């Protein structure tokens, strides 16, 4: 008796874990779309797919998904549009709080807060997702377009974000990240990797933002110590939009015309990118400039490498106080790489640069020092040695398998 009961229980457990019973929940736009779509997202079981027919879904509230292993699939980022123009509540258009979720082939337009946020949602895939604030850059737009946070395993591929008043694609407090083949335009920050580790940012087209690709670490957060970031094969071109972030945000201090900016991070490698027409600096490497009270925080850049890249015709109209005079002092145009001169000290180098590239330094003497006290001069950065082993960086391979 006992034995057979046990067998039955085991069988039930097996059936529950088998994805072979996966169902498709099909949703179409029109009357009651908010409730029908939200209900599908709630009633889906692990392994199921929520299929969004083509069309425009007029949504009045944020949506959320809290079931592991669900795929939400539209008919393409130009065809299936989740329209949040009349959103009345929630901090984002779509919130995902479960693991192993795939979001693909749909668009989110005009969310009041963030576009799609995934929090504590491990192994998530964003594929052919578009988040657009259709009125173009505006301080009244939401903050982040694609926003995974506190997650291990993030793959953003073939996606597109424009108009975010903070960052288009923003990955925070996460690890094992790949952001690739995506377009970020007309955001304050195009792509931002913040307080995160083991990230690969590759093959993206990043243009007309205020700053292109940002790699930051900030204090007073549960996850700090950002590092291990590879930035390669990106086109970071003409990031020339005036900063439209509301004041107070850390990105509000990003200068118009910043290509790649690394702040307070370790082991960041830039290679084979095309960085051009970014009017302040193609590459900027700095320490966290503000005051902070957090003994666990390291405000300095450590081991940032500018390897072989194409550094183009930028740095000619810097968004810096006295920029014109500075440019004149350097012969009409600033060198493409800017360092604030600050490092941790000891044997930890802040910045290493390919010997072919020119740079300049503010020669600041201490963290938090004001820019007015800078004593600009040519950069004499050491060359770098061998490349690093990056086998453990980037999204786990099993996330790739979902892109079929």
């Amino acid at each position, binding site marked *: 008796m006992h034995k057979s009961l046990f067998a039955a229980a085991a069988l039930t457990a097996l059936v529950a874990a088998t994805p072979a019973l996966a169902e498709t929940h099909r949703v179409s736009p029109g009357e009651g779309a908010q409730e029908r779509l939200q*209900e599908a997202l709630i009633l889906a079981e692990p392994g199921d797919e929520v299929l969004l027919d083509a069309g425009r879904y007029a949504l009045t509230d944020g949506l959320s998904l809290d079931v592991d292993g669900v795929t939400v699939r539209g008919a393409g980022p130009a065809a299936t549009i989740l329209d949040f123009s009349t959103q009345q509540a929630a901090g984002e258009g779509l919130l995902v709080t479960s693991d192993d979720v795939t979001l693909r082939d749909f668009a989110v337009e005009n969310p009041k807060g963030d576009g799609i946020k995934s929090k504590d949602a491990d192994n998530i895939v964003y594929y052919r997702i578009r988040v657009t604030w259709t009125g173009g850059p505006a301080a009244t737009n939401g903050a982040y377009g694609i926003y995974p946070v506190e997650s291990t395993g993030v793959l953003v591929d073939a996606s597109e974000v424009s108009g975010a008043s903070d960052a288009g694609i923003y990955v925070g407090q996460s690890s094992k990240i790949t952001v690739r083949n995506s377009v970020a335009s007309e955001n304050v920050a195009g792509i931002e990797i913040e307080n995160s580790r083991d990230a690969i940012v590759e093959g993206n087209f990043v243009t007309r933002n205020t700053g292109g690709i940002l790699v930051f670490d900030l204090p*007073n957060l549960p996850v700090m110590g950002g590092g291990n970031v590879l930035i390669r094969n990106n086109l970071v071109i003409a990031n020339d939009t005036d900063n439209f972030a509301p*004041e107070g945000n850390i990105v509000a201090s990003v200068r118009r015309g910043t290509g790649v900016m690394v702040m307070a991070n370790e082991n960041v490698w830039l290679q084979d990118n095309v960085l051009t027409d970014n009017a302040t600096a193609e590459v900027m490497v700095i320490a966290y400039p503000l005051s902070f009270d957090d003994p666990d925080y390291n405000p300095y850049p450590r081991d940032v490498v500018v390897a072989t890249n194409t550094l183009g015709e930028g740095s000619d109209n810097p968004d810096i106080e006295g920029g014109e005079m500075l440019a004149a002092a350097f012969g009409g145009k600033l060198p493409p790489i800017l360092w604030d001169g600050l490092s941790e000290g000891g044997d930890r180098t802040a910045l290493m640069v390919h010997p072919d590239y020119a740079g300049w330094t503010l020669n600041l003497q201490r963290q938090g020092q004001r820019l007015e006290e800078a004593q600009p001069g040519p950069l004499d950065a050491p060359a770098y040695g061998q490349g690093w082993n990056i086998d453990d960086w980037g999204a786990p391979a099993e996330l790739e398998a979902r892109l079929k």
Partner: protein
Amino acid sequence: MIARLALAASLALATAAVAAPRPAPVDQAAVLEGMPRSLSDYGFFLGGPDHPAETLIPYALRNPLFSDYAEKHRFIHLPDGARLTVGPDGRVDFPVGTALIKSFGYDGEGGTLDVIETRVLLRREDGWLALPYVWNQDHSDAALKVAGTRIPVAFTDPSGEAHRISYAVPNKNQCKQCHSRNGVIAPIGPVWQEMVFPREGDRERVAERTSFPPNTLSPSARWDDPDAPIAARAGSYLRANCAHCHSREGAASNSGLYYDEALGPYAVSGWRKRPVAAGRASGGFEYVVDPGKPSQSILIHRMKSVDPGIAMPEIGRATVHKEGVAVVEEWIGTETGR
């Protein structure tokens, strides 16, 4: 004022329950299995929200969560032979088969509550399940709305200001957004020293079934008690309204802002803490809490907004809680850096 009203209303309810016909027992199977489509399937109420089964234990909270000035009636259903445990922080651990029941509504004629919805939290073998039920027009029953809904509501707040809002019944996921610790659903209200039992003898009856921690559990200041120190009142208010997300285990764990911890000159309280992912919700201000400067503090800016991209909390609030904002403003205003 609000707290007193709620208490009086609960007492009235309790009396009504006694006068009602002998109740059918609560259907324990509905508490333990499936997602019943109708609230009547449980047997918690006898033909309407004003007639709770007499086995339900009404309770209130010293510092309730603000929900658009809605009145709330809370009840506990305990299974037969239930034993409860109170943790070192006062959090009550309920046994399988427990239901926590909370009705939301606005004052109607003659001191009754015009109930809109009733949310239930069911303690099952595999954890807690949160489900929202919306009452029909004649209050004969309430239907499960897993995807939530919006209902137009008109009411007058305690200051006499009239409001017309689109009242939001949360969907099942939104229930979890607040009722979540480490990604698992958990009750947030029932903390022993914060619970008020309006019906005579209930506190003693529950206590008889409960194991308590050895240390003393002291109740927190009421947020609306003018005689309590302002920092304690603000702390109570922020704990009741923010800490379910803003804790190290909650939905806002990534913010580094934690209101279940001691309030004071600490970054986790927002004290000179710069915004991280606030976006435009920063309002152009530098700090979450700028001591001495409530009008320049992001915390106040977000409490005062109803814009979904700015407002805190993110769900469950379409009006500004003027009285609550005033308490937090006063606290920030009296703090002058340290």
